[in-house]
Structures are given as structure tokens and as C-alpha cells.
């Protein structure tokens, strides 16, 4: 027989009390694990979203704006003295001293045209750059298109099936990631277009169909998969072709850029742009990123505060329960001492009790925490999050529980070892 036999037998006897300690530990560890899990996953998710949203600097024409207000009712801003951007501005960007910070420059021209009785939005752009800064742009592949075509045709025959329903069906299809894997193959001629999913459904066109815009016949190169963004309602074509089609030669509506802020100074780059393009308005989305970081940091701080509080409460629960358990065992400890147990043996037994419950508590708390993160995390975070099982967190949870168990059982253990055996045996 060893000391741990006594510890284990004692734990088995005091099931209710030990369950209470265990519950306190499980709640504490589960809270810490779930708060950490949610914050960590949100951090990853937000970082991913920010990096996925490649555009972080937008250059638009500078223009005056007037806002009219009548007794609290404000009319939309009326723009005047609008000075358009042009291809020379794009060339000016290429000559900036901090050009190396700019990963992608995506100029585009926006315009409206008519197809039959439908108004359509034309976007003239350098298609590859556009796909680079908007990774969610994907082209539906041929087999999927055939299915979509069938669905669309069926939709035509069955008048009760709406365009929305057809759109929903399209959303089921997995799009090929041309943007990343096969960008080299993405070559549009000047009489080809890429068409957004909503426009394709509205106009009932698919790959290979021909659309007539401003009297010019344009072949549908591909249909974009549903992205839930404004691109679903747009028709993409080469910038030069769009300028010619819309009769706005050399004109550019907006220049979007993907900037790597880590490779240089944001302030330097923005001042260089302002200097090179004096009649433009430069908007940096860096501030948005910083705002998200700040929000995340607040959550992290809140998580740390909450975890610390829970940790302290957990220690208190374990400590008080262990302390009361030691008091109940006064006589028993007196007997142990009389039978030749050293003070250190008594300390070992009490600490072993605290630590063994803590290991179980840490283990169960980890799984409870992961369960909470998996199910309540998306609700708390307000976003869809995937929580990976992490072995390092399991060890941290157990380690933390052991530290709680150790710290909170040290005082009761010390109290027990200090008990005067004569006093203890006076109960006899």
C-alpha cells in the first residue's frame, strides 16, 4: 500500500464533495477553454477575411458634394465638378517610389447599358487583376453550367419557377477556383464577357450565348458563381473594350489596389499617391483593419478578465471544499500522525487529492469547453466558425487545472500537517 491508495479510497468515499470540486473545476476550465477558443477562432477568421478582401486602397475622382437638408430630412449628396480618372493616373501609380508595396492595381470603368428592356451594369477591368483582388470571384465550370442551363430551360417552361429559385439552384454548385489555380487561362478577348450570376439568371443566358449591348455582339465567356456580393449583378469585360462600348475612351471610374502594409509605411505611400494624383480621393481600408484589431483586442482583454475571474472562483471553490474536507478528517489525520506519518506525508496525501481531481477536471473541462465553443461560439461570435481540436490546448487545460488544484490544496494541506495530533486525538 502506498499513499495514493489512501488518496484514491478517500476520493471514492467522498463522492458528493469531490463531485462538487470536480464540477467547479470543469466549469472553470470549460469557460477558459471556450473563451480562448472563440477569441482565437475569431482572430483567425477575421484575419482570413481581411486578407481575403484583397483591396485595401481605393482611388476615386475628387469631386465637390452638396447635401441638402429640410427640417431633418436629408437628400442624397449631389456631386458636382467631377474630374474623371484616366489611364495616365494608372501609369502614375506605377512610377511611385513605394510601388513595391502595391501588390495589385485594378483600375475599372463602371457604366450602365441596356439589354432589351433590362438595365445592366458594365464593369470594364483587367480581368486577371480583378480576380486577384477579389478571390471570391469564381467561374462555374462546364458541367455545372449544363445543369444550370437545364434548370434555366426548365424554368422557362415552368412559369411558376422564379428567378430566385433558379439562383438558389446555382448556389448549390461548387465553382472551380480559376482565380488561383488557372489564372493564366483566363483570357478574354474584346468581344467576350463574364457575367454575374444574378444577371445571367435575369437575362437567361449561359456560357457561349451571345448578348447584344449597344449594338455590339458579345459572347458569354463564363458565368460567375453566386458570391452574395455586388459582382453577382455585374457584367465584366476588358477595360479597353468597355471604354469603347460605353464611348468613354481613356476614362476610369475607380482604381482599387491591394497594398502590403508590412513592406513599407502606409503614410508614405498615401502621401505619394496624393502627390502623384492631386485630383483624387484616396481611401485606405487600413483603418477598418485596425478597427477590427481593436475590437479583437477588446475581446481578448475581456476573455482574459473573465478567465482570471473564473480561475479565482475555481480556486476558491476547490480550496474551500478541500479545507472543509480536511476539517472533517481531523481525527483521521491525528490517527495517521500517531501511526508515524510525517507532516510531509499528510501534505502529499491532501495535495495528491487536489491534483488528481484537477487532472480529471482539466480533461473533462477541455471537452466541455470545446463543446461550448463549437455550439455556442458561432452565436457568441456572430460568425460561422470552425473550432479545431487542439492537443496543446488539452495539455494547457490540464496544466491549468493542476495549478489550480495544487495552489488551492496547498493551504488545506499545510493546515492538516500543522494539526496537533494530541488535539486531533482529543476527539477520540
Amino acid at each position, binding site marked *: *500500500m502506498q499513499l495514493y491508495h*489512501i488518496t484514491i479510497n478517500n476520493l471514492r468515499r467522498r463522492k458528493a464533495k469531490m463531485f462538487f470540486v470536480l464540477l467547479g473545476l470543469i466549469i472553470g476550465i470549460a469557460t477558459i477553454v471556450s473563451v480562448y477558443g472563440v477569441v482565437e477562432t475569431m482572430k483567425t477568421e477575421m484575419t482570413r477575411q481581411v486578407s481575403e478582401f484583397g483591396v485595401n486602397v481605393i482611388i476615386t475622382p475628387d469631386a465637390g458634394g452638396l447635401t441638402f437638408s429640410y427640417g431633418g430630412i436629408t437628400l442624397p449628396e449631389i456631386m458636382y465638378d467631377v474630374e474623371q480618372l484616366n489611364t495616365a493616373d494608372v501609369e502614375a501609380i506605377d512610377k511611385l517610389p513605394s510601388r513595391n508595396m502595391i501588390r495589385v492595381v485594378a483600375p475599372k470603368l463602371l457604366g450602365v447599358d441596356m439589354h432589351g428592356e433590362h438595365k445592366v451594369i458594365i464593369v470594364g477591368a483587367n480581368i486577371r487583376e480583378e480576380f486577384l483582388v477579389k478571390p471570391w470571384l469564381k467561374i462555374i465550370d462546364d458541367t455545372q453550367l449544363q445543369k444550370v442551363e437545364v434548370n434555366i430551360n426548365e424554368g422557362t417552361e415552368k412559369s411558376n419557377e422564379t428567378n430566385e429559385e433558379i439562383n438558389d439552384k446555382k448556389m448549390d454548385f461548387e465553382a472551380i477556383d480559376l482565380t488561383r489555380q488557372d489564372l493564366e487561362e483566363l483570357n478574354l478577348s474584346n468581344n467576350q464577357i463574364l457575367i454575374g450570376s444574378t444577371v445571367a439568371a435575369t437575362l437567361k443566358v449561359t456560357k457561349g450565348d451571345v448578348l447584344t449591348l449597344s449594338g455590339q455582339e458579345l459572347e458569354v465567356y463564363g458565368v460567375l458563381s453566386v458570391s452574395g456580393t455586388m459582382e453577382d449583378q455585374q457584367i465584366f469585360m476588358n477595360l479597353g473594350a468597355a471604354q469603347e462600348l460605353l464611348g468613354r475612351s481613356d476614362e476610369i471610374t475607380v482604381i482599387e489596389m491591394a497594398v502590403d502594409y508590412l513592406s513599407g509605411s502606409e503614410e508614405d505611400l498615401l502621401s505619394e499617391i496624393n502627390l502623384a494624383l492631386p485630383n483624387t480621393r484616396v481611401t485606405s481600408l487600413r483603418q477598418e483593419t485596425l478597427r477590427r484589431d481593436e475590437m479583437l483586442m477588446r475581446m481578448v482583454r475581456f476573455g482574459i478578465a473573465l478567465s482570471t475571474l473564473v480561475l479565482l472562483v475555481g480556486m476558491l471553490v476547490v480550496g474551500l471544499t478541500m479545507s472543509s474536507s480536511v476539517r472533517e478528517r481531523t481525527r483521521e489525520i491525528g490517527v495517521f500522525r500517531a501511526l*508515524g506519518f510525517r507532516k510531509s506525508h499528510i501534505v502529499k496525501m491532501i495535495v495528491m487529492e487536489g491534483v488528481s481531481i484537477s487532472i480529471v477536471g482539466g480533461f473533462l473541462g477541455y471537452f466541455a469547453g470545446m463543446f461550448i465553443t463549437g455550439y455556442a461560439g458561432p452565436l457568441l461570435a456572430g460568425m460561422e466558425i470552425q473550432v479545431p481540436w487542439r492537443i496543446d490546448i488539452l495539455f494547457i487545460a490540464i496544466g491549468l487545472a493542476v495549478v489550480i488544484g495544487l495552489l488551492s490544496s496547498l493551504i488545506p494541506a499545510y493546515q492538516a500537517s500543522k494539526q496537533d495530533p494530541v488535539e486531533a*486525538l482529543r476527539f477520540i
Partner: protein
Amino acid sequence: MSEIMISLKDIRKTYKSMGDEVEALKSVTLDIKKGESVSVMGHSGSGKSTLLSIIGALNPPTSGIIEIDGIDIYKLSQEKRADFRREYLGFVFQQFQLIPYLTAHENVMLPLTTTKRSNKEKREMAEEVLCRVGLGNKIKRLPNQLSGGEQERVAIARAIVNEPPLILADEPTGSLDTKTGDEIMELFQKLNEEGLTVLMVTHNPDNTSYMGRTILMKDGQLSLDEEDFVSVYSNKKV
């Protein structure tokens, strides 16, 4: 090697109670030889239990010297004194004081827990000693599954498992019926015949007949007054 097992020289013990000093023991001097069996009698508050706790290396006296087998036990550190208790003393407490969540076998193994013996050796030693006290067939039982007499036997087995030279017993038959009490006293007598020194505190005058010598305590002192003996034997306060 000394022939004296217990040597008390001018032992005094005072407690502080409610601000007052209470003298529990007043200059007790006593020698008990190896292999002797001694019963200590006296009324409640006479200092019997204090004397037992001092001899048991649990309660340092206020003054005086106490040696067990030639060792001045209160010169030892607290931890060494714990080791001394384990090696030299076997305690039999009033109301058995068995650990309720351990079986009879495990209770008997308790004094061996912190020794360097192997688990197998500890198990065998405990089993053998339980057989000696007639409980070889009940080793897996918990204390609440045993009768009072059986629990007392487990307590005695626990006291002798470590083969100590001295047994200290505090009212070992106090909660037993007469027949069982007699059986337990016969067991103590047998252990004494096997060479163990036995010191027993008892209220029961019948138990003294199993012991070689009886010491009487009155008001914290040893008494040799015949009247006191009569009083204690007849359980009357003098």
C-alpha cells in the same frame, strides 16, 4: 542494552485553559521494564491520557526527561519523532479509530505505508498479523462490516504489524461487552507473553488482572495510597 523500556523523570505538564494554567502532570517519575505489562488507572482528569500521549511521543512535557528504550524522544525533531512512533510504538485507540474507507487489510497496512517495504511484503505482513488476531477470513471487510470486537482486533493488528517493542492502549475495552473485552485482554496478555511491553490506560478494574502491574494516578501524580486504589476499584471519587 538497557532493561528499562520507559523511563520518566520528573515529568510535568501544564496547559493553558481560559487564561489559567492547569497542571495536568505534577512530577511523575516512573520506570517500566522491557516485557512488562502495566495498567494505568485513575478517575477522569487524573492525567492518564496526558501521560499516555507524552509516552506516545505526541505531546512534549513542560519539563522532565522521558526515554524510551534509552532514546530521549523529545530531543528528536518532529519528523524523526514520527519515524520513532512508526518503528517503536503501537497505538490502540479508544473506539478503535479505524479508517472507514479502508478494508481491515488496508487499515492494518497503514503503519507500513511509509516504509520502504515492497507492496507484496506489506500485504503479507498485514495478512499474517490479521490471522494472528483471528481475522484471517475477514481481511477484505470494511470496518462497518465488522463487529466491535473484530474492529478492536483489527486495531490491535494495526498496532503490532510493524513489530514495535511497545504497545500503548487507551481504553481498549471501553466500548466492548464483557465477554469480548475479556477476549481482547487475553490477546494483550498473549502479546505480552510473546515479549511485547504493554502500557494500558483503563477504567475497568477487571482488566488489571491481565496486567503484571497497576499504576494509580490521582490529580496528575502517581498514587500509592491504598485508599485511592479502593476508590478507583470501586469507581468512587475520593
